[in-house]
């Protein structure tokens, strides 16, 4: 029998560079409630539903990159309770 708490995933979101400015936020805490294992894509879907800059900057086809716990990740990567998920434009260093 699953504990009902197990369906609640708390993550830390980090926004960087152009997205930090567009969202007027460097990050936030987010709680996802899901019966399935949530992925980066689940997070993006949740953010898009906020509308405004969230839906335009994260619209399908926009170049957006992700990192989970400081490692580059694909949208299909699953996330777990306590993870840090960063969302940012393609990098331009060097």
């Amino acid at each position, binding site marked *: 029998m699953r504990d009902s708490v197990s369906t609640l995933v708390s993550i830390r979101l980090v926004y960087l560079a152009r997205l930090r400015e567009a969202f007027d936020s460097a990050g936030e805490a987010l709680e996802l409630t899901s019966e399935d294992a949530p992925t980066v894509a689940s997070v993006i879907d949740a953010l898009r539903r906020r509308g405004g800059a969230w839906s335009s900057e994260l619209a399908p086809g926009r170049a957006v990159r992700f990192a989970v716990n400081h490692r580059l990740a694909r949208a299909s990567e699953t996330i777990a309770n306590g993870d840090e998920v960063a969302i940012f*434009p393609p*990098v*331009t*260093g*060097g």
Partner: protein
Amino acid sequence: MAVRVQTEDFDAGVEIARLRAGDRGVGAIATFIGTVRDVNDDATVTELTLEHYPGMTEAALEAIVDEAKRRFDIRDALVIHRVGALAPGDQIVLVIVTSEHRGMAFDACEFAMDLLKTRAPFWKKERLPDGERWVEAHASDDEAAQRW
């Protein structure tokens, strides 16, 4: 330390001397320095600000150095990347690779730069005479990274 992220400038000569110090097996040293150009995409650049993702940045650079050491027969490697506000002419990034023979040093140095351009969490914002803009990523950088 094989990688450093810092606001301060660096001295390539000093870093080269330090990296190869004591290793008499080194016969080749390839170095790359990236600098701030005063023009980009036909616009005059008066200042360049480098933002990064503290916490991930050093780990990403260390992964690049590790990968270069795994794929190429090299002796040692160093990556320094600056963050914060820079002016045209300022140094941005330094990559040094030491090896026995020159082919491996050149390849590993270019490989590290190609990966850095696509995998290290840095973002450039340019100040132009009439405002600011975030630098857009180049498709050519993705292509360069995919060669390896």
